């Protein structure tokens, strides 16, 4: 398992940020290559992420679901469960958001298997870190 911590800044108030991160239609496209395929409920969506590696790409398809939410503390966990559409691997992650005024913290616990994992944990960690950093810059404009 890979664990990563990041911070993000939006410059907006906590209530705005809370609504934004729980709105799957807004937050999923903030992941590069990510899109909502179908909303199953307010707190669950079918989604996919296409990771481009030059001319090659890997598409992971599955669900994103708000599995924990503490409206008072503005803390939520989004669970990503996805399969590699071109192989037998999977990419799962529990992403915990803890918000404050102006931004917040993101803690990611990810498990990746299959072709992507065959690059080694160090590579997976570096690429995930770059993906989440990019995500935080897009959150800044949400």
């Amino acid at each position, binding site marked *: 398992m890979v664990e990563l911590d990041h911070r993000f800044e939006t410059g907006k108030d906590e209530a705005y940020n809370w609504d934004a991160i729980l709105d799957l239609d807004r937050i999923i496209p903030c992941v*590069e290559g990510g899109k909502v395929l179908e909303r199953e409920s307010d707190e669950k969506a079918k989604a996919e992420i296409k*990771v*481009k*590696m*030059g*001319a*090659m790409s890997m598409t992971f398809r599955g669900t994103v679901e708000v599995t924990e939410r503490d409206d008072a503390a503005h803390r939520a966990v989004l669970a990503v469960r996805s399969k590699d559409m*071109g192989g037998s691997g999977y990419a799962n992650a529990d992403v915990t958001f803890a918000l404050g005024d102006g931004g917040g913290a993101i803690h990611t616990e990810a498990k990746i298997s299959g*072709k*992507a994992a*065959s*690059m*080694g944990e*160090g*590579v997976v960690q*570096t*690429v995930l870190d*770059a*993906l989440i*950093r*990019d995500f935080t810059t897009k959150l800044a404009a949400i």
Partner: protein
Amino acid sequence: MEYGPHNAELTVHTKRAGAAAKAGHDLTLLVERWSATADGDTVTLEADPRSLTVVKGEGGITSLGQDEKDAIKQTIDEDVLPAEPIRYAGGQLTLNGVTRPIAVTFDGTEGRAEIKQTDFKIKPYSALFGTLKVADVVEVKVRTHG
């Protein structure tokens, strides 16, 4: 002596770099349109920058298919290599409008040169948020048939 694709092969060899280099491929690119003349020690060569095709990709977590090779060619043509004429004469290479001396070695059947892309104001290809890149230095080889 005149040279070209009919009696020789001009290839470009790229290496992958970056933290996610394992996901990429070392490429062999064939230059399909070029001509050269050799008169004693004096060699001049001209090549069409739009005539590079991918003939081989080594490494990667999956092998390169024709679709990927075509996509790489498109990326080279659209994003990496400008359409400026490529010319080598008098020990100087002109590429992307920049002229600089390059070192060429020749052993009788094969000539080799290393070209640093950034020396010629070419931005090496980069993907996956910069974790997968083409190394700045590429190798060019010219080999006569037979």
